[in-house]
């Protein structure tokens, strides 16, 4: 029994040492591989109003992700996330139909971001828009 106890104790010590060595090795490798903080684009973007004519859409980078600003026929401004809610592709603006089509799996959204057809489970995320002195601010 005494011999078995000693064997178990030494085994536990060895296991502990091996686990500590593995942790000491794994930590630097994990830190080395962990994503580096990159300078992200501003969380608010200013766009001159003249850059978005009626019926057109403007795509831009907002806080490290893709966004789109649409001026509907009639003048209403809508800002949306351009990331399809299905599998993360970037939607495309179909000017003739005034809707968004995801080229990956055919998800179709209205100009307001609501799902018309296809696999997207939810609408495109709406973003706040303000207009002042001819400048449209999104975000």
């Amino acid at each position: 029994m005494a011999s078995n106890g000693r064997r178990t104790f030494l085994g536990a010590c060895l296991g502990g040492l091996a686990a500590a060595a593995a942790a000491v090795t794994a930590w630097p490798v994990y830190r080395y591989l962990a994503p580096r903080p990159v300078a992200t684009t501003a969380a608010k973007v200013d766009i001159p109003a003249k850059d978005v004519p009626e019926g057109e859409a403007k795509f831009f980078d907002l806080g490290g992700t893709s966004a789109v600003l649409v001026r509907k026929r009639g003048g209403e401004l809508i800002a949306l996330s351009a990331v399809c809610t299905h599998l993360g592709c970037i939607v495309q603006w179909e000017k003739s139909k005034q809707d968004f089509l995801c080229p990956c799996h055919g998800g179709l959204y209205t100009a307001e971001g609501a799902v018309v057809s296809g696999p997207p489970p939810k609408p495109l995320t709406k973003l706040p828009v303000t207009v002042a002195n001819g400048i449209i601010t999104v975000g």
Partner: protein
Amino acid sequence: MALFKRLIDWIDVRIGAREIVAKELTGYLLPRTINTWYSMGSILLFIFALQVVTGILLLIYYVPDADKAFKSVTYIMNQVPFGWLIRMCHAVGSNMMVLVLLFHMLSVLFMNSYKSPRELNWLTGFILFTLVQGISLTGYLLPWSQLSFWATTVATNSVSAIPVVGQYLVEFLRGGKLVGPPTLGRFFALHVALIPAGIAALVGAHLFLLQRTGVSTPPFGQKETANQWQGDGYRYESHPGGIPFFPNYALEDLRSIFIYLACFLAVVFFDPYLFFPRDAFLPANPLQTPAHIKPEWYFLANYQTLKIFPSEFLGLAVQGAGMTFLALLPFIDRSKERHPLKRPLFMVCAVGGILLWIGLTVWGHYS
């Protein structure tokens, strides 16, 4: 434990795992007089694995472009968490690999283990030695520092001494008349793809040959030290009554690996720039050659030999002859005796050769 045993049973009934373990590990018997020098191969396998892992990690941030390479290495060293550790392990590891490889070759040499039927083991080992030198040389250029650039310029230029095709060979190696961005591309491909694949294949061949011939018995502590191989047919050198590879010698291997790790990490943590002269920290400048540019320590003897001879061709020819002699040693040395102390001529040549190499290295360092 019951689950673990069930898993082993599950595998065993499918592929006969226990039979392999019994034959290749617990039943793989080694000579009772085996010594620590036989662990060098295991240490080398460990180093090679570590070089592969750290090399893959470096590839994540390294950019093989002449305009970006130095910056990317500086970024790894200064910005990426533990980047300095990964790079230092890779750079120090490459030097250690050459050092341990030299010890491995010397132990095989002095125990006369290269003799029949192990000529192919020696030959594959010797090719591995040249490939390790090649992978070190090509890796040296990648940081695109002043040291990298000019050491590669000097190293590649020595090929020009070969008559007729020399100059063309230099341009072929460099991808142009001078070392430049095309050289970096070529050396990068050689360093990360071609040579590692060659080393892995030859390590496989080396181990296969070892498995087929069996481990040689050290000549020390034996009454009969003459080579018993007759050459009349294939015969595996077994060691009845010997010690099992697993767990006995595997633990010895593990101990040697830990001793190596202690030495290796001592350099990495306490003297990481041991192998880095000042020029290794300056970006390459093709218009400014630094003074006293020297190759790595293991090429210093070659460098000094080239300087001694009045003609570069003669210096290169002497080195080529020396390397050929070493590569073909088992075919030249046909003596049956294996104990080095019973072979005075062998000892004079071997010790003289080592002293000459050390002397040339020291001379090359201070010249």
